[in-house]
């Protein structure tokens, strides 16, 4: 065909189909038309359908009074507040459970991932057993298990488990003493900030000295000393401005203190255990990706075991670990939406659940909810990409 068109200039002119640029243009125009046509069709249908069913459109509902209570709120919220506020409350609850989940899952995941590579046969087998069990069971089932089978089986408040130090566990949740910060506490916070700044200065100047002179002085112990001693000194000087509000059994339930509702606990435990299994695999593969030659080179340089890990293995492993780890964080955040199955008041449960049922404005609400997750995803991934670029191998 190509040959024909070359030999026959007339055919070449007339047969636009053989022009790659024209073809590309045509495909793109068709694609655009198809997509917009489809969207137009859908919007048109939606508008007709909503008109028929008498559904109002627009975001006016956000200022209407919600009229339902929410069991856990991080900001002030009453039934007389607006639907807009339920959105914020749900969003904050989602952020809370994701944030805590990410921290706990990272800790557990690193522990198990390192355990998986342990020279201890038993520990390594136990770690892989953990990974294989929890990775292969649906998260929703794990949430149900912790919520319905474990936490629902706890004793009522009167027979709660006393965990000591003022902490109690019962079917209503987990009750902890709550710190109360008194007037002088801002001094302590100031002291903590000062201590952190001092430690950063110490580490930086030490590094500079090492680069200049080659003399290395240990910084870990002095840093820890600074971090603890300065705030502690200030704390005692200003007269211990901290007291604890202990939960106490009054009537049928505990009053006071910090209470963690069972829904949050179940969700957090399940998310942590499930995601930790994936993080452990990420960590394992990251560490295994650092070639043995690197460790051997470190040994040949005479670095100690700790130095080898801290200076050679971990920085290189992190480079491999960070991208998939970010993915796991995003997964955890998205998975936290399963909260709706056990009634933890997260964004999906409060907003796409109760608010949607009450107002019937499905399109606005679902797009707002999706928008939140999309924004969170894009934000996290751009943050991690930035970090990733910083630690990425600079190749010349």
């Amino acid at each position, binding site marked *: 065909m*190509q040959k024909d068109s070359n030999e026959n200039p007339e055919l070449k002119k007339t047969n636009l189909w053989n022009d790659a640029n024209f073809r*590309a243009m045509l*495909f*793109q125009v068709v*694609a*655009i038309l198809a*997509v917009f046509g489809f969207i137009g069709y*859908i919007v048109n*249908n*939606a508008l*007709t*359908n*909503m008109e*028929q069913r008498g559904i109002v459109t627009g975001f006016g509902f956000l200022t209407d009074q919600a009229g339902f209570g929410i069991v856990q709120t991080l900001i002030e919220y009453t039934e007389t507040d607006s639907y807009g506020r339920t959105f914020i409350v749900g969003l904050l609850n989602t952020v809370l459970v994701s944030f805590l989940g990410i921290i706990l899952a990272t800790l557990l995941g690193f522990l198990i991932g390192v355990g998986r590579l*342990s*020279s*201890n*046969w*038993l*520990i390594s087998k*136990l770690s892989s057993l953990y990974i*294989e*069990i929890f*990775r*292969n*069971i*649906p*998260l*929703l*089932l794990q949430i*149900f*298990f912790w919520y*319905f*089978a474990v936490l*629902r089986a706890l004793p009522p408040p009167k027979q709660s488990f006393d965990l000591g130090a003022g902490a109690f566990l019962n079917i209503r949740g987990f009750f902890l003493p709550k710190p109360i910060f008194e007037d002088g506490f801002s001094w302590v916070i100031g002291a903590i900030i000062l201590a952190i700044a001092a430690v950063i200065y110490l580490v930086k100047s030490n590094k500079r000295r090492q680069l200049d002179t080659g003399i290395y002085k240990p910084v870990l112990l002095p840093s820890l000393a600074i971090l603890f001693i300065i705030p502690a000194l200030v704390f005692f000087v200003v007269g211990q401005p901290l007291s604890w509000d202990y939960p106490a059994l009054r009537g049928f339930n505990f009053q006071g203190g910090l209470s963690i509702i069972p829904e949050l606990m179940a969700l957090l435990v399940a998310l942590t255990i499930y995601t930790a299994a994936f993080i452990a695999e990420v960590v394992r593969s990251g560490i295994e990706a650092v070639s043995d030659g690197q460790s051997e080179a470190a040994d040949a340089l005479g670095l100690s075991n700790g130095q080898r890990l801290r200076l050679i293995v971990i920085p290189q492993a992190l480079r491999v670990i960070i991208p998939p780890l970010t993915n796991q964080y995003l997964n955890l955040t*998205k*998975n936290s*939406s*399963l909260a*709706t*199955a056990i009634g933890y008041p997260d964004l*999906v449960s409060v907003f*796409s659940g109760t608010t*949607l049922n009450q107002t019937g404005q*499905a*399109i606005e609400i*679902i797009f707002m*909810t*999706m928008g939140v*997750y*999309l924004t969170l*995803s*894009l934000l996290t991934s751009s943050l991690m990409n930035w970090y990733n670029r910083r630690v990425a191998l600079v190749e010349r």
Partner: protein
Amino acid sequence: MGKVHVPKPSLPPPSNSIGAIAWAKKHLFSTPLNSVLTIIGMYLVVTMGYWTINWAFINADWVGDSREACTSSGACWVFVSARFNQFIYGFYPESEIWRVNLMFAIFTVLLLALVIEKTPKKPWIAAFTLVVFPIIAFFLLYGDAFGLERVETHKWGGLMLTLVLAVVGIVASLPIGVLLALGRRSNMPIIKNLCVVYIEFWRGVPLITVLFMASVMLPLFMHAGAETDKLIRAMIGIVLFQAAYMAEVVRGGLQAIPKGQFEAADALGLNYPKTMGLIILPQALKLMTPGIVNTFIALFKDTSLVLIIGLFDLLAIVQSALADPKWLGYSVEGYVFVAFMFWIFCFGMSKYSQHLEKKLNTGHR
């Protein structure tokens, strides 16, 4: 001088460097920390193993048809065995269950044929599984043709529904995923951006919001008066969602194909469809199989979310059975059963995908 030097036979290795004790020394008690960890680990294994075996096997009740049969202190598997049919087939009419079994049987045979390495004409079997089998399965399950009685989808449930959702999700999302991935790697900016937006959108939102969307918004998007089945709506949601993930798997496969292959195809004068269809995709698909199996595992677990929009998959049907006042208090047994079923499938598939990865790794580089 004719003395021949005969070396003495070598001594056996010192007794502390071979055998079980040496192994334990090396692998369990090499350092003080390791010894402590080993002892804690052993304690955990022994106590938990003892408790589990006691609970699940020794003290468990297996036969009976009501909770009165559960007299011992261990697990009450009667709860599962009494409702086993329901957990597997949902509310499918008892007289028609052979159809589900037949479908499962055909599926198993096809899968085995695909998994076993030496099966002849594999591409044809794969094509049959992806194209013809879904049609057969549809008529077997739904009926309403060839003299088969119609079984409405709201009667589908249990493990059968879980499998149907997962298989439909994968089979239908594969072609869409291939198109999206090709689009994402295309030189045409508009097509590329459309595909990127599609993929990033679905990958950025949780499946649960997709299912909500499918169940409440889809009816609004349809032509006025058009009714759709709840199951179909869930499937549409799952396929749209899964296609984005599939596209990323396919893209990974495409990226692994060396540039020389594209250039060779160009040099042969092949056009785009031929380059992709004859040169690139066959090689990429082979590389993608582990990735596809992994997304299948993820989807298989995720199908349990349909519980939230009111479909009775394996988890949902057990969850609803737990609420039966006749069987209150056996939630652990129910959950362990569901977990075991999911685990068997997922673990088997993940082992298969690891095996594939190993096999593909050796041959290709």
